């Protein structure tokens, strides 16, 4: 039996079930007309293990970008254990099919050299949250990536150990307003200095930072830069850094 409901009623039903994947899956097989609405939530949260094999599998499964599940992905879009696939020119085309992603988390754990983020630049104009973890990519490239997302609000930088921190530093011409949260753990010194250089300034309302014994003025400077907007501040010192993310 064809199940035809007015679209606004169908939207109401599916919206109501947004946090119940098992119910959404049942809706998905109920009728073809229900599929697009249910996919919007079913595939909003994709955990993607970024390997060459997984990219090939994805392309094979969804050869037509206009019909790909990528368009439903919102958050989190997680890349882990990056192989050399990131340098593949096809990756640029592939990554741009995820043009509605709002949150990007790149974990480059295991890479002894810096991951290139060039192909990620501006791939999703609606990106609001960016987290980079365990990367030794040069800071210039990291900040070029940050500045390629005009609506970016939240920024997480964990264990950023740039290999070529001494390279030249060109301040980006534009930068997002950065009005959400900032989480920094490790690599504080170099990251904060670059952050303070951004042309649009810093407007974070929440900051979680690992305090640096060697350069305490950096944290103070960071707080001062956000003085008008900062409401929530969490300071963790190095000794308890291992517990940084446990409570929340």
């Amino acid at each position, binding site marked *: 039996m064809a199940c035809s409901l007015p679209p606004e009623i169908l939207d109401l039903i599916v919206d109501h079930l947004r946090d119940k994947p098992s119910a959404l899956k049942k809706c998905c097989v109920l009728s073809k007309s229900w599929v697009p609405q249910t996919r919007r939530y079913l595939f909003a949260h994709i955990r993607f293990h970024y390997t060459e094999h997984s990219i090939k599998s994805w392309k094979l499964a969804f050869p037509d970008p206009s019909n790909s599940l990528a368009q439903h992905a919102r958050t989190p879009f997680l890349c882990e254990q990056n192989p050399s696939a990131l340098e593949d020119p096809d990756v640029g085309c592939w990554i741009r099919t995820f043009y509605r992603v709002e949150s990007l988390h790149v974990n480059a754990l295991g890479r002894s050299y810096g991951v290139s983020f060039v192909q990620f630049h501006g791939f999703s104009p609606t990106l609001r949250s960016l987290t980079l973890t365990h990367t030794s990519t040069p800071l210039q490239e990291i900040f070029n990536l940050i500045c390629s997302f005009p609506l970016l609000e939240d920024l997480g930088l964990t264990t950023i150990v740039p290999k070529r921190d001494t390279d030249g530093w060109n301040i980006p011409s534009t930068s997002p307003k950065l009005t959400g949260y900032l989480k920094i753990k490790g690599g504080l010194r170099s990251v904060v200095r670059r952050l303070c250089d951004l042309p649009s300034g810093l407007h974070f309302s929440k900051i979680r930072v690992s*305090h640096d*014994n060697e350069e*305490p003025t950096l*944290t*103070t400077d960071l*707080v*001062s830069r*956000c*003085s*008008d*907007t*900062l*409401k*929530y*501040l*969490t*300071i*963790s*010192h*190095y*000794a*308890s850094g*291992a*517990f*940084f993310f*446990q*409570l929340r």
Partner: protein
Amino acid sequence: MSVDVSRMPSLDLSKATNLTHVVFRCGRSTQWVTTTVKTAKSKNLRHIAVNSFAINMASIEGAVHREWEDLDHLLDQLWTSHSIRPRVIYRRGTGEDDGDLASRSLSKLTKRGVVDMVEYKCRSGRR
């Protein structure tokens, strides 16, 4: 594990005039917490939390204990002057009588009942 954090420098929060919540995640030493809280000038400050779950409260003694007393005194003053009720997250030791150690380190606050003492428990359920 004992980590010397006595030289932990304080922060200057005087320019953060809209600050409402401050959370400190500290080790044994709380001197930097005390000096940092003293710099806060925000009239909107409503919440101060001290998370010391990374240490065993039973290991607090001597100079470190005095630092906790100083913090206790300061937070007590803040309660009196600004009605800011602090929240302290602590970890118990392995002994049965360790439960009151955290309270003893913040005696003024606990006597007046103006602090929320929360025992930290690992996600695995172990202490």
